[in-house]
């Protein structure tokens, strides 16, 4: 197969580079392209400049990203669009003989002259150049050099890393100050390679704020901060962590993430967007995290709880996961078209969230980049195609299949559901294979009525074959997912935990572990974590604890200009990332800091403040026509309980990059916009929190203004302000108070409960404004 003209010894390729240079000059007149002798091969530590050609070209890290992104579209897995019979996604394909006489080769290891690829990518003639001009894809000089050099070095092939079973790597033999420093050793080794080192430890105030938000989504109280600061014991931080992992708020934080994955919503999502009741399922998620149900069970129950022999009510309830997709009631739709949509949604959700694959790309044709054929896509689809469900639901209907939960059952068995006494029973959607014999066909071009070949339940073979040992149903699929030979499940899971704690996954594209996805920044660490997670019985709390106990996690976020230059995205973790609070955390921080937060678990979703008219102005007059704000406690619940209407989601949450819940989402955007500033400045919830906190401080007559400011500052940012900062805030306070003008402030109405206090209105106003100012500091919306 392989044609070798030269043995690829180092000597020869040193010889070959100048030779190629001559060739290039002959071939093309452009002076811009490739003076290879000029390529400066620098020390690995300055790799930060992406333009430096690496000394040793690695197929996975340097070559395949180019081939996948620029070549696979016509020379990749999709047979339907493959050109010239050439494919670069498989080893056999890439080295195969081409042309009528089978005498040409795209790649000849070690021989750039004989490799057609070199001629084509360096071609000047428009008709010859690859990728073709009209593809709108092109190679940069850097990329061309990489490909040529790789061929020169022998064109060594490797399989895609994510489809190779992880092996638990050895922990690097490197000194770490941390006694349980496995993670740190992997990080330190990489830092050393890059000529970097870890930053100093963050201050205790920063550290406790960070870990509180990461594990519970809430800020620490001043008492918790003080306790931690005073505790000089070796285990001080560990004690904090253990308490957080044992707190109910932990489950709420974890659930908030899982609700995005599960596209959870309180409405059906299409057109009139009617209400649905799925919150008991959400309560189960919180409880499952708090009970630390192992991840394999957690997933298995959600995918196939109903199929487990003698399934419990809880296991059946968990399958609500795959009924969270949108459902239409629009008059006139074709039932089968939408039933198909729901099956597609389940297929895409499971593949994206559990396998980190963009399988939806194989819905209409073979995947363009990854080894997933359309046939495999619909084989996977077959698992979720057995429900007796309708495409169009009626108004007032609870779509089948569903189960009824009674108050009695909640008292006896489903104790984790926080069912109000006013509700006797409720129905919610679950999975049930009532049509086990429904046949599945490839749907040509993805169209619901365009049947192709019939398919049976199956999976993408590249991950792991679906052999006879698995049942041909969702239960078998769960077993396959958690088979120790499955190359993806564990990696994808630990990567998402890593993303939760460190801001970016080890694989930055946490939804795409395929050829177009990012490469792992620390491949060995990812595999070590994945294997460890599995060995330890998928113990999520233990894994999170390991991450936050690391020295890596506990670094300061201080970034020197040099470090910012070398590693702007903080890929190598020579510092901690200064992560912004999520949409939920921003509001919850305000509620907690002001003392408004109602600490209550679960139950029906709630309707806190929302600008008037948002539902009314878009409604048809059917379904949820008007947003009727709740009263009392329900205004101050944690944000994960806020009622989610998919067609008009809570606006402040969307402004802060919450997912829309239209479909499965495993990572959120991190943006900074003027609309966010407006929310922070003017949202009535923030203003109320400011006033409540201000009044609370003023009521305590023993405090000086400086002390009051310090407390407010600490409650909001978790940090004790410096004297200079307090001085500035005092100036602002006094200025506001002294310029207070009763006529201008006519519209400033105090809350009823503050009107009878013996505090001048202008004092409350000035302190409220000051508190609002502090809520708007940069520091108030970052973790620490």
């Amino acid at each position: 197969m392989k044609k070798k003209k030269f043995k690829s010894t180092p000597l020869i390729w040193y010889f070959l580079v100048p030779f190629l240079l001559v060739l290039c000059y002959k071939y093309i007149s452009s002076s811009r392209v490739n003076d290879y002798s000029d390529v400066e091969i620098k020390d690995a530590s300055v790799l930060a400049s992406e333009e430096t050609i690496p000394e040793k070209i690695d197929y996975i890290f340097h070559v395949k990203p180019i081939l996948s992104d620029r070549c696979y579209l016509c020379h990749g897995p999709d047979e339907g669009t493959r050109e010239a019979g050439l494919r670069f996604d498989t080893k056999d394909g890439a080295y195969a003989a081409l042309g009528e006489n089978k005498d040409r080769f795209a790649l000849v290891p070690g021989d750039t002259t004989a490799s057609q690829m070199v001629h084509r990518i360096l071609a000047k003639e428009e008709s010859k150049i690859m990728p073709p001009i009209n593809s709108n894809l092109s190679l940069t000089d850097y990329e061309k050099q990489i490909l040529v050099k790789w061929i020169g070095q022998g064109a060594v092939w490797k399989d895609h890393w994510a489809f190779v079973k992880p092996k638990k790597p050895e922990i690097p033999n490197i000194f770490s100050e941390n006694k349980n420093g496995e993670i740190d050793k992997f990080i330190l080794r990489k830092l050393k390679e890059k000529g970097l080192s870890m930053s100093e430890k963050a201050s205790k105030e920063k550290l406790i704020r960070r870990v509180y938000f990461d594990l519970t989504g809430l800020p620490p109280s001043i008492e918790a901060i003080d306790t931690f600061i005073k505790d000089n014991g070796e285990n001080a931080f560990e004690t904090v962590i253990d308490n957080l992992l044992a707190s109910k708020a932990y489950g709420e934080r974890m659930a908030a993430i899982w609700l995005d994955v599960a596209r959870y919503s309180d409405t059906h999502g299409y057109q009139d967007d009617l209400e649905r009741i799925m919150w008991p399922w959400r309560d189960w998620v919180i409880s499952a995290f708090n009970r630390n149900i192992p991840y394999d069970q957690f997933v298995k129950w959600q995918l196939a709880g109903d199929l487990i022999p003698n399934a419990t009510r809880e296991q059946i309830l968990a399958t609500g996961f795959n009924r969270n997709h949108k459902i239409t009631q629009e008059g006139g739709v074709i039932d089968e078209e939408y039933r198909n949509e729901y099956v597609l949604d389940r297929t895409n959700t499971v593949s994206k969230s559990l396998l980190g694959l963009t399988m939806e790309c194989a819905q209409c044709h073979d995947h363009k980049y990854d080894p997933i054929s359309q046939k495999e896509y619909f084989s996977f689809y077959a698992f979720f195609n057995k429900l007796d469900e309708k495409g169009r639901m009626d108004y007032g209907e609870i779509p089948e299949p569903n189960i009824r939960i009674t108050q009695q059952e909640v008292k006896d068995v489903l104790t984790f559901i926080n069912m109000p006494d006013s509700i006797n029973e409720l129905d919610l959607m679950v999975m049930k294979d009532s049509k086990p014999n429904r046949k599945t066909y490839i749907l040509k071009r993805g169209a619901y009525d365009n049947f192709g070949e019939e398919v049976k339940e199956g999976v993408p073979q590249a991950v792991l074959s679906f052999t006879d040992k698995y049942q041909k149903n969702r239960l078998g699929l769960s077993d396959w997912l958690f088979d120790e030979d499955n190359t993806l499940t564990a990696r994808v899971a630990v990567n998402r935990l890593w993303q939760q704690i460190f801001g970016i996954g080890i694989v930055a594209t946490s939804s795409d572990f395929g050829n177009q996805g990012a490469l792992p920044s620390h491949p060995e660490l990812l595999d070590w974590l994945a294997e460890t997670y599995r060995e330890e019985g998928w113990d999520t709390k233990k894994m999170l604890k390991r991450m936050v106990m690391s020295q890596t996690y506990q670094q300061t976020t201080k970034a020197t200009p040099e470090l910012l230059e070398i590693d702007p995205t903080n890929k190598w973790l020579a510092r901690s990332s200064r992560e912004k609070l999520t949409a939920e955390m921003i509001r919850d921080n305000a509620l907690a800091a002001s003392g408004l937060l109602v600490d209550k678990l679960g139950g029906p979703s709630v309707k806190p403040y929302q600008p008037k008219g948002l539902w009314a102005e878009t409604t048809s007059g059917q379904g949820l026509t008007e947003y009727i704000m709740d009263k009392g406690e329900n205004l101050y619940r944690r944000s994960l309980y806020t009622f989610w209407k998919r067609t008009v989601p809570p606006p402040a949450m969307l402004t802060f990059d919450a997912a829309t819940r239209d479909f499965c989402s495993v990572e959120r955007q991190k943006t900074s916009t003027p609309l966010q500033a407006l929310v922070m400045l003017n949202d009535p919830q923030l203003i109320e929190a400011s006033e409540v906190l201000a009044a609370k401080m003023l009521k305590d007559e023993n405090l000086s203004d400086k002390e009051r400011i310090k407390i407010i500052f600490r409650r909001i940012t978790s940090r004790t302000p410096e004297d200079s900062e307090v001085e500035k805030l005092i100036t602002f306070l006094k200025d506001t108070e002294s310029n207070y003008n009763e006529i201008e402030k006519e519209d400033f109405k105090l809350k009823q409960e503050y009107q009878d206090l013996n505090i001048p209105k202008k004092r409350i106003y000035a302190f409220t404004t000051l508190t609002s100012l502090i809520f708007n500091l940069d520091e108030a919306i970052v973790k620490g």
Partner: protein
Amino acid sequence: MEEISKHFLNNNRRHFLKKLGLGIGGLATASLLNPFSSIVESSDSPLAGLNLPHFAPKAKRVIYLFQSGGPSQLELFDYKPLLHKMRGQDLPDSIRQGQRLTGMTSGQDSFPLVGSQFKFNQYGESRAWVSDLMPFTAKIVDELCFIKSMHTEAINHDPAITFFQTGSQQAGRPSIGSWMSYGLGSLNENLPTFTVLLSRGTGRAMAQPLYSRLWGNGFLSSLHQGVQFRSGKDPVLYLKDPEGMTRLERRKMLDHIAELNEKQEREFGDPETNSRIAQYEMAYRMQTSVPDTMNIEDEPDHIMQMYGANAAIPGTYAANCLLARRLVEQDVRFVQLYHMGWDQHDNLPSHITKQAKDVDQATAALIMDLKQRGLLEDTLVVWGGEFGRTNYSQGALTKTNYGRDHHPRCFTMFMAGGGVKPGFTYGETDDFGYNITKDPVHVHDLQATMMHLMGIDHTKFTHKHQGRRFRLTDVSGHVVKDLLS
């Protein structure tokens, strides 16, 4: 007095920018001045290589007048006398050609053809057909470019409107205005790049609903999401300062925030901190510029009369048309209106009469107002819904009453201004008004053409997300060159 305080506030801002080490002018300042501008995205953004616009644009701004629900082309623009002759007769199978029906009429025993109850005439030098429902529009046909051969793939509202707005029937892709904001950035430093105005028609009480995802940013940065401008005290959500707060207090507060944030920036070196300071400045400017734009008190009587009596009633289509003009005057890139209520399944004659009255005068006024200000040259105006309506009656056909179901195979839209041929009609349908016989224009073609007018090659303008390059027109769409002036 007001002048003085404005001067003071602005001075403060300049002082603030200076302290940040920013002169006026220069790239960094441009992006800090308007954070909606795409330049603010990091230099390694995938946009960096796009070199937009790809060629000289014909239009700099767009006003998209979306007629939600699916206006009947047969009552408004597509004149079909045969339907009168064949009134009550069944739609021949040879014409229907197996066209999929919605569930609302698929159960009907018969499909009785029905012609427009409203008279048609030809107008202007272009001799364009317009019915009596649109007398004002009839007067300006020589400014308009009609497309009679629009067609779409979706037959139900939710997927069809999503398709028009995002190029895909399923939710999740960016809206066309978001794409434009992302690709072309902002033209001004005080207002969002992509703004949205909603109005409810009088034609049908149970109008088709709208969804905020229609103006959503999809996988693009939320900087590019459509910003809804609403009638009432708070025209942009959370715009209004808390009760009692003066502008001077707000200014001082922002200066303090900036000062304390700068200290943070010095300590932690987080570039995001500076970006956030810029966002607050933009927010502050919006607090003045948005109400200024929304305040129509300075509009002279003759302009108000031009748009009609409803223009004085906030939240109406007419008021929104006037606002649209004010927004493009301020160089807002993309103004998206939605007018609800065109879904006339039943009682079509009475409902469409009211609905047409809602929009006719104001639409014509907007176009002529833009023209008299010299803005029509480089502003593209688009009018149309998500699909058309059937040539047969939904429900019983009586002497005075009928309804029409959804029809994706042909419908009429029109455009005006920025680079399209005025006084021009493109495409033809058969005598039944059921099939296109000449020059079909697909939704993706329209989108490709709109992009072309804005200087964008729709095949090159892509965004890589989850490993795949996405574009507004998915994998299809052709620029309709015949429409270009």
